[in-house]
């Protein structure tokens, strides 16, 4: 018998699954963060040009990657929700937005902390910085539109469409260091040329990325669970869950 791929697209069966997964991803996120920070702040060698200050890279770069990646995932779920009219994808898109905005903010903030000693300025109007700032505005717009519409179905569809429109910005951010030759340094890692940094640095950065990834999954699943409960609060199965989980 073919497996039922759509089993977990129903909130009723997804709710307990998400509940079982959250602690695992949470623990993985904590362990990977500890390992990544240890590798980055203790093991990795000092940079010959930037000294110790470069170590902020272990938070800055993974956060920047996540900010773009989460937007694409959010737009993907929004698109799924619009095309197939699945409610769970709309919940996912909605749950991803705050985490994406958080990582965008972290990327901008750590970038400012890094920019001060390196460039002598907290902020410059460079192509990558500006486009990352626009990304933050896009997340905020997505969340505001959702909050402004009372009817949940219209809120999900309207903000989903907005997420898809905003997705054109992500490639602009990603390629901005190649298209505009401004202050922000070029990519240290590329698919065709490999990495231009020491192996430990690269490992630490990848471990941190994985940690952020696990954190995102854990938080988003937890948020989706709340969302499901709130939207389905009039249904029988939520009453059963409440009777079981609330003493």
């Amino acid at each position, binding site marked *: 018998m073919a497996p039922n791929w759509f089993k977990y697209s129903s909130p009723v069966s997804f709710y307990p699954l998400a509940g079982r997964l959250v602690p695992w991803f949470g623990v993985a996120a904590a362990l990977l963060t500890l390992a990544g920070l240890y590798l980055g702040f203790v093991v990795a060698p000092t940079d010959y040009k930037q000294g110790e200050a470069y170590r902020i890279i272990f938070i800055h770069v993974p956060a920047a990657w996540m900010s773009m990646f989460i937007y694409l995932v959010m737009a993907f779920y929004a698109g799924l929700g619009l095309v197939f009219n699945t409610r769970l994808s709309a919940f996912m898109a909605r749950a991803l937005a705050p985490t994406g905005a958080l990582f965008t903010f972290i990327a901008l903030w750590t970038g400012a902390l890094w920019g001060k000693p390196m460039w002598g300025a907290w902020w410059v109007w460079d192509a990558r910085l500006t486009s990352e700032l*626009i990304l933050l505005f896009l997340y905020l717009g997505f969340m505001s*539109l959702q909050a402004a519409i009372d009817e949940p179905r219209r809120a999900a*569809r309207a903000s989903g*469409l*907005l997420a898809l*429109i905003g997705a054109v910005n992500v490639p602009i951010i990603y390629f901005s260091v190649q298209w505009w030759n401004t202050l922000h340094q070029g990519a240290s890692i590329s698919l065709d040329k490999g990495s231009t940094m020491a192996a430990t640095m690269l490992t630490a950065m990848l471990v941190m990325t994985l940690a952020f990834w696990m954190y995102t999954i854990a938080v988003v699943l937890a948020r989706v669970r709340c969302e499901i409960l709130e939207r389905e609060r009039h249904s029988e199965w939520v009453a059963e869950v409440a009777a079981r989980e609330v003493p």
Partner: protein
Amino acid sequence: MSGTGLLSGTRNILARDLTIAGRRVTDVLTTLFFFVIVVSLFPLGVGPEMATLRMIAPGILWVAALLATMLSLGRLFTADHMDGTLEQMLLSPHPLSLIVLGKVAAHWLTTGAPLVLMSPLLGLQFGLSGPLLGVLMLTLLIGTPVLSLVGAMGAALTLGLRGGGALISLLVLPLYIPVLIFGAGAVEAVASGLEAGAHLSLLGALLVLALCFGPWVTAAALRISLE
């Protein structure tokens, strides 16, 4: 109402919206005055130093054009939404995206085009020379239709929402940024003795992109808002 071709709906809506705008000339003039006033505030705020003003003029004119367009977006669908005309348009046999195209064209003719025509006069006040004024007009001519097309998406998404006016700025302004960068960039390039070709090509590309997808996305947003 004549003609049965694909574009007849577009044409009819365009003629209708232009007639309505003609009957309410003050609406059109308000946007234009807003543009003029915002631009005139800068010399008062920054100081009357001609060299400085000449340098920041393209950016100021462009930002003011962005704000003026945004201010007028509410006019695009709200009145038709209130009196039920919009629902009739949704039900009509004409493709909704082409009807939207007609409405956007009317919006541009009543807001974007006056801004373009007004810009040389304001540019002169900022000490811009002849060739610069030409480039400024050209960039506004290519850029303001993009503003109308992109703004229509935001107007459709926020249709009938409380606080829609403030919300639309949050949705639309980030999407306006590329137009602003290349529009003001073209004028600045010419001012510093470079070619404006690359900027103008990118503006043109944005216009083509917005023309292809804008009306279609706006139609989808209208359906969501009215379902």
